[in-house]
């Protein structure tokens, strides 16, 4: 609902309202809460081929193969594509609040 200006002071408080968006991580919150299955990396099996890094649609796997569980949505592409089966998907235990 558009706000009606009352006086100059209020105008100062509101300032400029633009339609510019600001780039930010987690722009829709911690998307890790969408996850049902969670990827687990077996570092002994991993030979750092970087396939999971480039295939991850969410950019959650860093180039040194660390999974960011805050934002990982649990799509399972890394487990499916890993040639050495170093990533496995396990059912995540969550508390009642999710």
């Amino acid at each position: 609902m558009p706000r009606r200006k009352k006086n100059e002071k209020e105008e100062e408080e509101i300032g400029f309202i633009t339609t510019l968006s600001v780039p930010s991580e987690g722009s829709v919150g911690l998307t890790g809460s969408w996850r049902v299955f969670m990827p687990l990396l077996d570092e002994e099996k991993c030979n750092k081929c970087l396939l999971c890094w480039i295939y991850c649609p969410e950019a959650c796997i860093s180039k040194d193969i660390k999974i960011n569980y805050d934002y990982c949505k649990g799509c399972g592409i890394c487990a499916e594509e890993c040639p050495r089966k170093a990533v496995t998907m396990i059912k995540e235990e969550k508390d009642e609040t999710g």
Partner: protein
Amino acid sequence: MRLRDFPEDEVFLQGSAACQGCPGSAAIRVAFKALGRNTILAVIASCTSVFQSPFPLSALDVPTLNMAFATGGAVASGITAAADRLVARGDFEEKPTILAWAGDGGTYDIGIQALSGAAERNTDFIYVCYNNEAYSNTGTQRSGATPYAAWTTNTTKGKEEWRKDIAQIMIAHGVPYVATASLAYPTDMYRKFAKAKEIKGTRYIEIQAPCPPGWKFPSSHTIKVARLAVQSGMWMLFEHEGGKTTYSAGTQRIIQGQSKLVPVEDYLQAQGRFRHLFYPEKDEVRIAEIQGRISHIFETLQFTHKMKEHIMDIELAPPR
């Protein structure tokens, strides 16, 4: 270019609104690794408009403009003109790459006249169509890119028409560079984007984007389906430059006889949108029709390749 040489810098920030296993965000990551940060992005209405997240935050860390469906070529032309002026005036040290990013609806159907106009003027920009073969953003309606016999919400028994070949339409415009890419071959995609960056004029790159909710397969199979599409011949990887089409990665291997064409049934069976071809009973006629068309194209290409090897360097027209 090997995977370990790809830059680490991420333009696409994690925690976006994309679905699990989204092919669009996977494609945008590889594209920006090749193009770098000196890029202005014009997003034509598509899933990308949505998954870059609601106001006031954005998951894309480059200057981005969100535009209406029919404006792809027009907006990119405007940005290019402005960028040229700013470079001439000395405000920009280096001209940024202009990237128009559209889905298949914004390219095949609604956006084609603006794109055709920009291509005819040979405006200096890269146009990317990430093709998920339906209007997946609004709930999977049929588009000009939907393949024959595929289910969508308004072709419930399978589409009756064949998809149009927009890459050939772009080649007919005489633009300097046309290429197709697949998510399953990131090094090939990276090479094509890096090459396109160096060329001046309108460049068109099309990426096949298997969409888990639209095509009805598990989110973990995005890359697997993309790979099957290339291996079965349903998607062809090529680049067209200077009047010559060269095939690359998986498609090249099939043409040169290094690997065999996977039966198209394997590709169709991996997706729920072709389920009516297998259940309740197998529709042999339509499967044979699709297989016949692909086999014909590849037999022609393999024959051309052998002719070239053995007789002389002749160029046959690429099949539609």
